[in-house]
């Protein structure tokens, strides 16, 4: 394509002169010399080399357009709108200002004009931003009317705009105008488009259902053109998928079944399968009925898209039928085996992921492929495979799989390596490490993870290292060993991602120093020169760990001497009392453990102290307070030890004579003896209120402060003001206003500073009252917690009766409750539609279709059954009573299902179905009778009646 550069200066001068002549109105010059769309595109292309030039060209073009679009000449206006549409859709410009000009072009008799206008409207109009489309209601109606002047080329874009941009009102007004196209001659090429537009009308305006729904159903009939059937099936698919309760569409099942068996059109088959995937869980007999055709398709269809849809349908809705699932899994394997087609492999993995935990065997069978997929070039496939593998993790295989993944992470690229580490950390840490049996292994795996050169998950590793230390006592020796290995490696010190891991390692080796093998080595490691590469806070943790090590070595040194004294005396005693075997055996164990533990000699302790003193010494001058403070603590401790009377005497046993020594030992033991444990998120409740703190009064004072001024920007200010006047507090001792609301207010504003409580707002509101009984309760809680904790730490192997799984479930419910408010709104709207459709299909059209009626008619079908049962009362009182009760039960279960629908999976629906079928078996015949009666009632239109028997015969 050759592109003639346009003579820019010429145009510039022209347009500027016209600007000067008529500042706002377009002149004849504009009309005569208007640039066409092609000209505009060429000029944009010639200036596309630099963004500045391009922006300038766009601005100039916009100025032109603004002038031209006001021209009374429709051709000029149309070209201007054309140019604007181009700019807006490709350069993300706002064109809402031209909405009215687009409407001006609609009545033009020349076909291109309204088409340009409709295109502009379809790209920019939306009820939420443009409210001009209702102005064109009349024009749209004229274009939709059946007349020879309205060619498909004109009506099609009109329908398109309606489908994209109509508001609820407009859709309601124009719904009757769609009817001639929808139910006119079947060869009308506009029919599929009208169907899609009707779908939109139904979505935004459920009240249109009585008008539009029957013609839509008719489009499914045999006499329709294939394209109309296809469009209608798509429309029903959308409706059924969007509806919270698709049961109103059940009566159409025979039509869909016919299409499923007869249709050769893959588009139609896919949509029909989707519809059945939604309907089958509602009606067990339907599932049985479609099983065979679906399996046939699964076996025979040459189109992969149809096969995949069958797989999805089987896995999601027919998973009770083992043979079908077996077949689907075989097909998935075929997908996975197609080496040349990545798309199929990806979809195969996705289908495997759809299988619930009940079908783990299927994943296990394809295990090799899944693991091989970790090596794929495609990140999506690798991600999918990783998710599947994580889903396979069980207590029995967690070690094997995690080791495998870990080795793989070493070889893969940084992003994926971190994705793997993330997945492993998240899965293993889930629910307080419920999968982990061998904590020694897991702890060493954590250590290895930190050594992965790509590792960027230091934060999570840090958290888990410390957390396991707190929770799992048996894992501590291994934890300390892993920590030592991490600390001793000088290569790790420079890695900023590992800073946090090292901090955890230092803390662990300080806190659980009694498990450490070589104290001197540990201290040397903690004080190695390269630690200056660490961040200051981590260094502070290091020095605190040194402090703990020094304390521990001193205490054990003294203890050792004392024990030796007792031992020697005991030895002397045992010479006389040999019979006392038990006692000696006990003691022997203690002494052995000390002996094995590499006895601390006076010299080695001195050496240790000297080393620490020389290395930590300079840090006491450090300008970071944290480090300085801790360094001084360490030095102070050493100083105290050195000062004791007998320190310099080589004779060790003399040391114990020093009274001061035993005091120090007692003190230091007391300081570190209490074991740290994990803190519950609800810990605030267990804090006892100090006796001299009178919460009630203090808070009641706030009443007037808050009550007086609503505009107080921040309550904390009034707090501090009050605190400065304690005398006033006493005067106001009579509480005026219940403080709970104030507290709630404060909590609302400063929620950040509150620890999270459980979700019972009542308790937290009623603060002073709730505290007294709470104390008693909290003890129980405490005890429970400890039991839980010890169960975890002492019996971490397999015994998991106290794992907090039930707690998690409770939390989920709470979450669901909080979100239900949001979903209810949408559900309600959808419900209107399904109610309306139910009416259309089941013949309740006599009722006005206002919204309140709709909602009450939601269970109209059940209600009718009840009514017919009441008619039965005269002839068969017993049976109908039983039936009545059953129907009530059903409708109430239906209602409750409505409320929890957003949480429910298909699986649970299936369960419900199974439960219901047992009832069904017993009362099937009577129910059938009830339905039969209902059919004979005369108030439904004939066509609806004719549909009812069809579905009953089909379903039974």
């Amino acid at each position, binding site marked *: 394509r050759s592109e003639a550069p346009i003579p820019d200066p010429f145009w510039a001068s022209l347009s500027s002169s016209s600007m000067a002549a008529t500042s706002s109105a377009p002149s004849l010059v504009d009309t005569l010399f208007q640039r066409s769309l092609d000209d505009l595109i060429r000029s944009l292309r010639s200036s596309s080399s630099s963004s500045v030039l391009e922006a300038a060209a766009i601005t100039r073009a916009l100025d032109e357009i603004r002038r031209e679009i006001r021209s009374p000449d429709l051709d000029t206006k149309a070209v201007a709108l054309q140019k604007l549409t181009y700019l807006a859709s490709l350069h993300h410009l706002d064109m809402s200002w031209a909405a009215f000009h687009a409407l001006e072009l609609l009545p033009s008799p020349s076909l291109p004009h309204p*088409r340009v206008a409709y295109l502009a409207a379809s790209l920019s109009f939306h009820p939420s931003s443009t409210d001009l489309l209702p102005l064109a209601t009349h024009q749209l109606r004229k274009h939709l009317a059946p007349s020879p002047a309205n060619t498909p080329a004109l009506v099609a874009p009109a329908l398109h705009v309606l489908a*994209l941009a109509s508001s609820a009102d407009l859709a309601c007004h124009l719904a009757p105008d769609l009817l001639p196209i929808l139910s006119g001659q079947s060869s009308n090429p506009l029919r599929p488009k009208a169907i899609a537009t009707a779908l939109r009308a139904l979505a935004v305006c459920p009240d249109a259902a009585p008008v539009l729904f029957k013609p839509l159903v008719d489009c499914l009939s045999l006499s329709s053109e294939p394209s109309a059937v296809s469009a209608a099936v798509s429309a029903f698919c959308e409706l059924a998928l969007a509806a919270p309760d698709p049961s109103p569409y059940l009566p159409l099942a025979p039509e869909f079944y016919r299409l499923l068996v007869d249709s050769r059109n893959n588009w139609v088959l896919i949509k029909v399968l989707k519809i059945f995937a939604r309907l089958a869980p509602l009606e067990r007999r339907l599932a049985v009925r479609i099983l065979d055709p679906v399996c046939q398709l699964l076996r025979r269809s040459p189109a992969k898209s149809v096969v995949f849809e069958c797989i999805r349908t089987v896995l999601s809705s027919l998973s009770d039928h083992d043979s079908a699932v077996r077949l689907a899994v075989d097909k998935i394997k075929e997908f996975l085996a197609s080496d040349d087609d990545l*798309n199929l492999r990806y979809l195969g993995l996705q289908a495997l992921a759809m299988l619930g935990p009940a079908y783990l065997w299927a994943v296990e069978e394809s295990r090799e492929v899944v693991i091989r997929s970790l090596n794929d070039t495609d*990140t999506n496939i690798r991600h999918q495979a990783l998710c599947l593998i994580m889903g396979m993790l069980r207590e029995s295989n967690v070690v094997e799989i995690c080791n495998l993944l870990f080795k793989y992470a070493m070889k893969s690229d940084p992003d994926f390596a971190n994705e793997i580490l993330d997945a492993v950390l998240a899965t293993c840490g889930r629910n307080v490490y419920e999968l982990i049996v061998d904590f020694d292994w897991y702890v060493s795996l954590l250590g290895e993870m930190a050594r992965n050169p790509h590792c960027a998950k230091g934060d999570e590793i840090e958290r888990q290292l410390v957390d396991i230390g707190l929770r799992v006592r048996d894992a501590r020796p291994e934890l300390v060993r892993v920590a030592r290995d991490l600390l001793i490696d000088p290569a790790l010190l420079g890695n900023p991602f590992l800073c946090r891991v090292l901090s955890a390692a230092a803390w662990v080796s300080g806190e659980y120093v009694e498990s450490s093998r070589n104290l001197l080595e540990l201290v040397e490691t903690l004080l190695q020169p390269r630690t200056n590469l660490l961040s200051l806070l981590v260094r502070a943790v290091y020095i605190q760990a040194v402090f703990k090590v020094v304390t521990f070595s001193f205490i054990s040194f003294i203890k050792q001497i004392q024990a030796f004294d007792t031992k020697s005396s005991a030895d002397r005693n045992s010479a006389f009392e040999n019979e006392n075997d038990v006692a000696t055996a006990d003691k022997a164990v203690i002494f052995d453990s000390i002996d094995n533990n590499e006895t601390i000699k006076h010299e080695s302790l001195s050496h240790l102290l000297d080393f620490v003193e020389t290395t930590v010494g300079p840090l006491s001058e450090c300008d970071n307070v944290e480090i300085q403070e801790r360094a001084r603590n360490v030095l102070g401790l050493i100083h105290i030890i050195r000062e004791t009377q007998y320190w310099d005497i080589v004779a060790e046993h003399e040391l114990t004579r020093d009274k001061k020594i035993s005091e120090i030992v007692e003190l230091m033991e007391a300081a570190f003896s209490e074991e740290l444990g994990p803190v519950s998120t609800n810990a605030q409740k267990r804090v006892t209120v100090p006796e001299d703190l009178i919460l009630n009064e203090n808070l009641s004072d706030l009443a007037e402060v808050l009550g007086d001024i609503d505009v107080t920007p921040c309550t904390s200010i009034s707090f501090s003001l009050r605190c400065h006047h304690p005398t006033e507090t006493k005067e106001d001792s009579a509480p005026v206003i219940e403080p709970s609301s104030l507290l709630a207010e404060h909590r609302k504003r400063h929620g950040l500073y509150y620890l999270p409580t459980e979700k019972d707002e009542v308790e937290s509101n009623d603060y002073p009252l709730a505290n007294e009984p709470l104390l008693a309760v909290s003890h129980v809680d405490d005890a429970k917690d400890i039991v839980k904790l010890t169960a975890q730490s002492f019996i971490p192997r397999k015994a998991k009766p106290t794992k907090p799984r039930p707690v998690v479930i409770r939390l989920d419910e709470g979450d669901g409750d909080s979100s239900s408010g949001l979903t209810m709104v949408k559900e309600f709207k959808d419900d209107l539609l399904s109610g309306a459709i139910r009416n259309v299909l089941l013949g309740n059209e006599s009722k006005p279709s206002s919204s309140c009626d709709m909602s009450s008619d939601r269970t109209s079908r059940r209600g009718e059954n009840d009514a017919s049962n009441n008619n039965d009362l005269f002839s068969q009182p017993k049976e109908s009573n039983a039936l009545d009760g059953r129907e009530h039960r059903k409708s109430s279960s239906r209602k409750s299902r409505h409320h929890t629908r957003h949480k429910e999976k298909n699986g649970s629906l299936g369960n419900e179905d199974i439960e219901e079928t047992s009832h069904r078996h017993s009362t099937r015949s009577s129910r059938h009778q009830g339905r039969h009666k209902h059919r004979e009632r005369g108030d439904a239109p004939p066509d609806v009646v004719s549909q009812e028997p069809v579905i009953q015969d089909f379903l039974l």
Partner: protein
Amino acid sequence: MGIRFVLLVNKQGQTRLAQYYAEHLTLDERRALEGEIVRKCLARTDQQCSFVEHRNYKIVYRRYASLFFLVGVDNDENELAILEFIHLFVETMDRHFGNVCELDIMFHLEKAHFMLEEMVMNGCIVETSKSNILMPIQLMDKAS
């Protein structure tokens, strides 16, 4: 809605056609969404599959010469069918323009939109026959 949007983007990441269905995004949101999608999809090689998950969409894409055809769909839409749809769209344009290229679409954006309009309405695929899709456009070409 099945199809949420159809995007045509060239190798440089410039939008060549954009049609959104059913949901309304502001200009800024569109720009951001298109930018994210383009970055994600254009970085992928031929050895990677044609499906990308982004936000709450699934994006099915295919590359033809210098143009990427990206279709955003609902999560329960059939990916393989959408790939077929993309291919059909390209074949239709090919039949009309004869060996279609980026410039054809730039200079005949309206026609490209009209073809898409014939095929997809309100997110539903309504026409899959190439001759039916092209009929109104050919009629109009004759008339003018």
